[in-house]
């Protein structure tokens, strides 16, 4: 790197390149927002689901579990847990019963805390997980095990 390639040339390429690619990123974000309604299951984004998302957040579920592959890797993926545990045939009931039964207390096994959720809150978190399972994730995860 010598001769005509000066520091100010390098700086100008930096600013030009950064601005260009950031604008491109904004354009892709705009297209993304246009495409999302067909994929993100927003038709089913009910107040109950929104309340369920809040329970997901305030119990820090993502501190152990993944949701659509993001989060901690200590406990099972929950983006598809509704499907894995029976879907329309008992998925919701399984999720509620599971949360209520924690912790298992089995010696040496990983433990999930008891969150003392009310019946209404249990319905909300289950509705949220059902909602997430219906998002179009381009066929991820590869199978039901998550």
């Amino acid at each position, binding site marked *: *790197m010598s001769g005509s*390639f*000066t*520091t100010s040339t*390098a*700086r100008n*390429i*930096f600013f030009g*390149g*950064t601005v*260009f*690619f*950031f604008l491109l*990123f904004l354009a*892709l*974000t705009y*297209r*993304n927002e246009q*495409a*999302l309604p067909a*994929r*993100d299951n*927003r038709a089913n*984004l009910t107040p109950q689901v929104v309340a369920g*998302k809040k329970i997901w*957040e*305030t*119990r*820090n*579920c*993502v*501190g*152990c579990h*993944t949701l*659509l*592959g*993001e*989060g*901690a*890797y*200590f*406990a*099972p*993926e929950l983006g598809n847990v509704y499907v894995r545990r029976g879907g329309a045939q008992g998925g919701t009931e399984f999720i509620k019963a599971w949360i209520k039964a924690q*912790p298992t207390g*089995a010696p040496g*096994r*990983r*433990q999930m*805390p008891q969150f003392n959720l009310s019946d209404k809150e249990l319905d909300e978190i289950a509705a949220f997980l059902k*909602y*997430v399972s219906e*998002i*179009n*994730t*381009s066929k*991820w995860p*590869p199978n039901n*095990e*998550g």
Partner: protein
Amino acid sequence: MQYKSQAVSKLYFVAAIGLFVAQVLFGLIMGLQYVIGDFLFPAIPFNVARMVHTNALIVWLLMGFMGSAYYMIPEESERELFSPKLAIALFWIFLVAAAATVAAYLLVPYASLAKWTGNDLLSTMGREFLEQPLPTKLGIVVVALGFLFNISMTVLKGRKTAISTVLLMGLWGLAIFFLVSFYNPDNIVRDKYYWWWTVHLWVEGVWELILGALLAFVLIKVTGVDREVIEKWLYVIITLTLITGIIGTGHHYFWIGTPEYWQWWGSVFSALEPIPFFAMTVFAFNMVNRRRREHPNRAATLWALGTGVMSFLGAGVWGFLHTLAPVNFYTHGSQITAAHGHMAFYGAYVMVVITMISYAMPLLRGRAANSNKAQVIEMWSFWLMTVSMVFITLFLTAAGILQVWLQRVADAPMSFMATQDQVALFYWLREGTGVIFLIGLLVYIWSFFSKGEDAAKA
């Protein structure tokens, strides 16, 4: 130390190392919980330990960046800090806020903490790495703005260099993209989409500007190579960083409900993300080879070279391993991700902060370099921590490959927990290596207390 006000950085460096110890201790707790599931349950559930582990990391790296800036900017600007008092006040605010937040994580149920701290007014909590209660998040913004004001005023009134410009852009970018963490849409897909604007555009974007500036500063000092040459390299590296890294955000948009064109954009651009890290490695070695002086602080030079190599391996190579969409389809959200995360954070950000501390701390303590004995101890800590991090990464990668195979590829896929039992051996090996990492960190701290006769004069 040329300017009195540089002394404020010492506070930041000491606190950073303290929080680093906390981070590693909680990492060891989590590592043990991976194999002894009920260890410390219900006193410290895994999710709580993880919040402390990751949040302590973020805070100590920010402390390290701030301390580095307070050290560098006076020398770059050739004048005293605009306000050393503000820097000290902000330090205590930041430290108390961080300690209070960690104490709250450990002592208060997270849902109660959310209720008491106004999460109902503006819900921002419960998202990975952004778990902090609203007052803490606001505190971070106040501290960041005060810090940026202080640093920017110093730069504006003094000499302007490429290094200080790049550092300022990185730090302002850090503050601006943190603001996105206050935006939490009800729609989980949009939530995740914009969550990455903070997380990805930090660690694969503006933080790399800070990394480049810190490394460039230390290399000028220890090699004596012309500033002109080093600054040109710096611009080339950060150009490569941002033209690959911004669109590279797309590698997080494969499977979260976002449209499929991201699989192309994300794969192609993030596959190029190793290039700036490779350039950084070449840069570090090239400058050291062309050195025009023998700086007495050989430990700092070792850390600088280590940053180049380990950031390329951790962020570059281990990132590339699972960044192409057809590969990521199988590896997404597995121990492969954890392996990459550990070596990338260590190699890029932990090591660059230690590089800076290693260079600046002896000067802050009134000598050009530590005694030979102290440097040898410090170099031992370098090898202990770096080699154990390589093995932590290898063991997590082995666990990840097995996990992906058993749970996602095999003809009769196992459940998540059954798979975890199968890979327990690698978790044990990781935990043992983690203990060696902790020993390395304790050796590092010991090096500060080692006295020797032949300390070089400042």
